[in-house]
């Protein structure tokens, strides 16, 4: 009849994590460690640095747990954003070309149609996932390079060998299509 810590709602675990409750903290880390490490590893590529960033992400979440606002988004999204910001900060210092364009198709495939993603992704992401899969290749690459690797339009233009204006247009058009899909998710259940 009772509910063990590992089945408590995300918000409860976060509150316990921020308050220093040992059991709830452990349950919080266990629930989200794969997500956080996955983000860090995808962006950074190096497992050792990715682990350090993932640890930093949990540390930052612990420090700021009390300012988390559930109206702003889910705990998962909040934590993902923290990990992503830290990871992008690392690669911006380290390199001017964080990703090899040859690696992008595999990542985009993993984000859009692998069985694991369908099983793990929360339902609300289905529309954006489909929209990402439907983007023209150039737009999908530009959106991924900007949105995941934090690359500027100028960096994308250099990597892709296209004019700056083309890179900017690809980011804009790709993101607008994803936004439309996101808004449709928001209006109706999928």
């Amino acid at each position: 009849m009772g509910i063990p810590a590992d089945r408590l709602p995300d918000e409860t675990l976060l509150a316990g994590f921020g308050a220093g409750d040992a059991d709830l903290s452990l349950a919080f880390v266990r629930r989200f460690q794969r997500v956080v490490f996955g983000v860090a590893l995808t962006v950074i590529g190096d497992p050792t640095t990715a682990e350090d960033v993932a640890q930093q992400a949990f540390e930052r979440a612990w420090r700021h747990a009390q300012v988390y606002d559930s109206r702003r988004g889910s705990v998962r999204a909040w934590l993902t954003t923290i990990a992503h910001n830290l990871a992008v900060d690392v690669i911006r210092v380290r390199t001017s070309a964080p990703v090899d364009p040859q690696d992008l198709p595999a990542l985009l495939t993993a984000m859009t149609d692998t069985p694991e993603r369908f099983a793990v992704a929360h339902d609300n992401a289905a529309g954006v996932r489909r929209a990402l899969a439907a983007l023209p290749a150039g737009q999908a690459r530009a959106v991924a390079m900007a949105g995941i690797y934090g690359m500027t339009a100028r960096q994308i233009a250099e990597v892709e060998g296209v004019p700056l204006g083309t890179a900017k247009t690809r980011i804009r058009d790709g993101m607008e299509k994803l936004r439309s899909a996101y808004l449709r998710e928001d209006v109706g259940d999928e």
Partner: protein
Amino acid sequence: MSELNEMSCEEFADLAAELALGVLTGRERARAITHLDQCDTCREHVRQLSLTGEEMLGLLPSREPPAGFETRVMGRLGHPAIARRPKRTRRMLATAAVALAAVACGLGGWGLRGAISAPSAGNPHTAQASVRTAALLTAGHQTDGRIFLYNGSPQWLYMAVDMDADMSNGMVICQLEASDGHIITVGSFHLDGGYGSWGSPDPLAAGDVTGARLISLNGTVLATASFTAAK
């Protein structure tokens, strides 16, 4: 000032996605932010694009971290949770903080709002909700834990026990006492070295609870809690 203010909504729309993704730099970024400060429509546009970007991050594949990751995270945060338990007083303070933080942060108490990891929404009941708490006392009037009753929607109870380590290992049972005197068994949970915490939907109206008991499997009353009149 004048030149920075001159960006039109059409110009802004060309840069909105880059701004939302945090990849707009230099003068373009300064002009875009200046426009954003003055235009509610474009601010909403960027907000939607930012949320879309976050949604895209949610599609990134999860990966199993290296062995021992959780231990290293807990150690980094100063949690000796795996190797040894924190001291009794600190644990009790933390438990109380969990209760207060959950409500103070507008988290809707401990209500199970939908599936685990589902996106959250504001809880309209938060403003009316309240938490009642009482100490779990032994026969010798030693505090062995606390029970919290959350009078929100749904109603929820949370119990944290922290008794002497040699007192109890194994299952214990939580019972509530209603105002008409009848006792209801809510559930059971496991104590490890005298420590355990547990939450459950509250089967009684929180205001109808007058007391709680923690009993062992053989029926021995380990501790009791008494609530004053509901607020």
